[in-house]
């Protein structure tokens, strides 16, 4: 195989699989930054990481020693961890780029200077409307636009020297051709081409990831062509790459291999300590078999760790049965909010199959009038924002509106709580609530069409029945329906926070979960959908009404949605529910606020409102910080346990799932999403410089897609420092996700054997799995597939028979 434009493209694609998967900041989605290494063991990934970037997959060793000194890591946990140690490094070649080699030999900074030029052009190319002027020649792609405009860039002359213009003009217009030309001219051996490209991505992983996001290899090829062309231009023509620039991938000077083994041991012990603590809590909690009376309301919340606290307090307030389910409510949909564009509102691992639109409810009184008014208010607000980014208009705007905007800015600065209340009152006065409905039917359909997956429109009746059935079955709610079933999504409210989406619902791709709750409620209240469900074995009583809600995780307030569509027969119950939700919210806020910095503990609920509206507040809420585990089982397993808002809770009735189909859905869907969230917090904590986005006060939003820390350089990835730590104190405890499942071990074995993706995560130590019940005890599935008895119960120690994988055979 010789390197040509086509094979250069395939190498560009192959090398990109190790890039962190990132998303535009406006729809921040938590992912595992090392997703591309999940086919290797966690320890091998740590070694590769250290060798290629110098980054660490573990906390600094002195931090573990401190945790040991305060008893968080015990000698017993260390002993147990030591018995599990394994070390069979499987390394990959690591190469130096041409400019890195030159810098090493001559003490120069050519690689950094090339980085600066490439980063600048990536920023202008990927800009999505933040800049007032669009990039000329964008249609030519990154390389083509650069090639056309670079001769006018003074930075190029500074980097390349005289004759820069002529040499750039002589480059091929085709990026893949330019790339393969440099590869051949500089002697990069065929077997190292993908490794070289990987090293080139590693120089600016944030920008490279953003380019990879498009899914179009043209952008990746253009990045590499630009980078290698610049290297080619700045280096002496005689400098050629050689295989001495490739190493065997041992951690070398960056981090000693023995250190990684010790760190792995500490981390294992830290996680075993939490595992034992959680299982002790679940096992020692007195269990009530059923509520004293039938619940008046069943309330379904997202599995998000923040729901755990709210559910616990709501159950304390009254006769409520709560359920945990993925916050997209099982709906693979795009949602177009009123007059907005459709955006995916489901986990990023799920492909949306239908589009739902929010439209004015024509059956509601005065809907049209309210809608017109909304247009005027919305236009005025949009004008204000547009004025801020225009070159001249802000001066005129300040003249005209400064008398009111100035005092408002002062109020937001010195009295943010009052400002937030005032803004809310003004908004309500100027903009009466619009009564809308989610349009779920496919336009033009008689609602009885085939269940063909639809992309552009809504859903046929058959699709609605299918999705409603899937949701109810997966959340284990198929009988004994209460008069009201609350479907509660969640959102956050923060001001001046580019990372606001990181606090919204991860299961809804970083969006608010209310729209999904509205869609499912709308479906489940339809008589024809209920008929279809009855045919499928789920009978919903006529007296049951599904109502949507939205939990604001910053203030712990719950808003009921689509109240106007509820029959009057249920209004009294709903009024009582709203009162109890408010009580539970205040209690939850008080409990939660105690962990926030600078909190007014005497008025926790008020302080939460202040944080939501304060544009100078760096920590409006802690989001999913401290997340540690997912528990899959009936609510009786966790009811009454204070799990400290650290646990994702997914309801599951093992008795209703004899063939394991429901559990299989949970393991391959919500568990994977939980693992990504857990990993994002993990890596943003252990190496915030490499995997986090830096500190908020230094952030500058660039291109509307991400942030710089400062004024240039790489596009930062991961969570801001203020999501995992504050004032030098770490708040998030980095633990790989622990899954605790109440189900028969045989069922788990069958599911793991049938799902290689889950098996890979377990085999390679990216997540850990504990199975059992309080009565029978718990067992952890080790990486080699054997089971180890954990704390509690009387579980038989004998290892379970398991099927070998093809690899083991």
């Amino acid at each position, binding site marked *: 195989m010789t390197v040509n434009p086509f094979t250069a493209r395939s*190498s560009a*694609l192959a090398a990109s699989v190790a890039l962190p998967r990132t998303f535009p900041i406006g729809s921040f989605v938590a992912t595992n930054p090392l997703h591309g290494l999940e086919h290797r063991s966690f320890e091998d990934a740590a070694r590769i990481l250290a060798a290629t970037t110098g980054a660490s997959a573990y906390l600094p060793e002195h931090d573990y020693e401190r945790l040991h000194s305060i008893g968080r890591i015990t000698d017993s946990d260390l002993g147990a961890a030591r018995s599990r140690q394994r070390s069979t490094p499987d390394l990959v070649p690591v190469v130096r780029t041409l400019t890195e080699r030159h810098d090493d030999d001559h003490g120069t900074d050519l690689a950094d200077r090339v980085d600066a030029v490439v980063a600048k052009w990536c920023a202008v190319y990927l800009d999505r409307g933040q800049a007032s002027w669009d990039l000329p020649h964008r249609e030519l792609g990154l390389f083509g636009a650069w090639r056309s405009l670079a001769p006018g860039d003074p930075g190029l002359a500074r980097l390349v020297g005289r004759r820069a213009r002529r040499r750039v003009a002589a480059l091929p217009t085709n990026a893949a051709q330019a790339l393969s030309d440099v590869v051949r001219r500089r002697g990069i051996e065929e077997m190292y081409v993908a490794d070289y490209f990987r090293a080139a991505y590693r120089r600016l992983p944030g920008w490279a990831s953003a380019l990879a996001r498009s899914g179009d290899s043209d952008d990746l090829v253009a990045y590499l062509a630009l980078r290698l062309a610049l290297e080619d231009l700045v280096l002496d023509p005689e400098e050629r790459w050689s295989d001495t620039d490739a190493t065997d991938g041992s951690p070398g000077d960056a981090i000693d291999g023995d250190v990684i083994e010790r760190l792995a041991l500490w981390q294992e012990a830290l996680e075993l300590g939490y595992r034992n603590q959680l299982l002790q809590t679940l096992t020692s909690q007195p269990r009530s078999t059923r509520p004293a009376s039938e619940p008046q309301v069943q309330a379904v919340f997202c599995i998000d760790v923040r729901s755990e606290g709210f559910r616990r307090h709501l159950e304390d307030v009254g006769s409520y049965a709560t359920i945990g389910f993925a916050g997209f409510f099982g709906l693979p949909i795009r949602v177009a909010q009123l007059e907005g564009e459709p955006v995916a509102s489901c986990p990023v691992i799920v492909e949306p199959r239908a589009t739902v639109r929010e439209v004015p409810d024509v059956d509601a009184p005065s809907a049209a009038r309210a809608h017109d008014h909304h247009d005027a208010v919305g236009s005025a607000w949009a004008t204000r924002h547009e004025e801020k980014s225009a070159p001249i208009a802000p001066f005129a705007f300040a003249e005209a509106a400064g008398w009111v905007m100035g005092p408002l800015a002062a109020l937001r600065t010195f009295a943010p709580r009052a400002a937030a209340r005032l803004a809310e009152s003004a908004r309500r006065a100027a903009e009466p609530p619009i009564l809308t409905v989610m349009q779920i039917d496919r336009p033009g359909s008689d609602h009885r069409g085939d269940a063909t997956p639809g992309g552009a429109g809504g859903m046929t009746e058959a699709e609605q029945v299918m999705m409603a059935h899937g949701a109810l079955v997966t959340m284990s709610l198929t009988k004994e329906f209460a008069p009201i079933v609350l479907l509660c999504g969640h959102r956050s409210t923060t001001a001046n926070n580019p990372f606001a989406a990181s606090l919204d619902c991860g299961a809804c791709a970083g969006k608010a979960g209310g729209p999904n709750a509205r869609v499912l409620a709308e479906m489940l209240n339809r008589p024809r959908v209920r008929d279809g469900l009855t045919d499928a074995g789920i009978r919903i009583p006529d007296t049951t009404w599904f109502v949507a809600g939205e939990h604001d995780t910053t203030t712990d307030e719950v808003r009921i949605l689509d109240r106007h569509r509820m029959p009057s027969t249920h209004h009294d119950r709903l009024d009582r529910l709203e009162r109890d939700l408010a009580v539970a919210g205040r209690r939850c806020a008080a409990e939660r606020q105690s962990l926030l910095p600078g909190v007014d503990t005497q008025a926790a609920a008020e302080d939460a409102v202040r944080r939501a509206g304060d544009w100078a507040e760096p920590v409006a809420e802690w989001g999913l910080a401290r997340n540690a585990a997912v528990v899959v089982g009936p609510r009786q397993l966790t009811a009454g346990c204070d799990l400290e808002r650290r646990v994702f809770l997914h309801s599951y009735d093992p008795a209703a799932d004899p063939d394991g189909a429901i559990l299989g859905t949970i393991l391959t869907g919500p568990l994977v999403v939980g693992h990504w969230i857990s990993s994002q917090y993990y890596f943003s904590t252990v190496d915030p410089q490499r995997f986090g986005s830096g500190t908020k006060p230094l952030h500058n939003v660039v291109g509307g897609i991400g942030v710089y820390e400062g004024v240039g350089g790489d596009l930062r990835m991961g969570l801001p420092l203020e999501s995992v730590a504050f004032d030098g104190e770490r708040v998030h405890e980095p633990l790989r996700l622990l899954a605790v499942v109440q189900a028969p071990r045989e069922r788990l074995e069958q599911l793991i054997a049938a799902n290689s993706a889950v098996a890979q995560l377990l085999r390679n130590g990216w997540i850990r799995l504990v199975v059992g019940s309080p009565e029978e005890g718990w067992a952890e599935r080790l990486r080699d597939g054997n089971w180890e008895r954990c704390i509690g119960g009387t579980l038989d120690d004998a290892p379970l028979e398991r099927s070998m994988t*093809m690899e083991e055979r």
Partner: protein
Amino acid sequence: MTGQQRLTPMTRIDVVVAGEDAGSIEELFTAADATGFTSVSNVSGLGHGGHHDGRVLFNDMDALTMLFTVVPDHRADDLIDALSVLLEERPGVMFVSQTAVGRPGYFGVVEE
């Protein structure tokens, strides 16, 4: 001329990868000037990494996808090389076989 003799020899390339990599495969097919391809998502089977269950309700990324294309023999080598590079990095398998088609024009061969 028998039925078989009326057909034009071609190369068929089948690839089975995780759903998240299907886009890259499609792109390589297209970049190799393949005039078409077929993609089947949520396929089940047994392979090097164990069983793969096609019934994955809430995860299109890990569900396996099978893609296949047919290209003239002279275009196959570059495509096979390119796919091999990608499959060195990602889980998946490739099968290459000889096939024959009745309408070569549909597959990028100019009929005389």
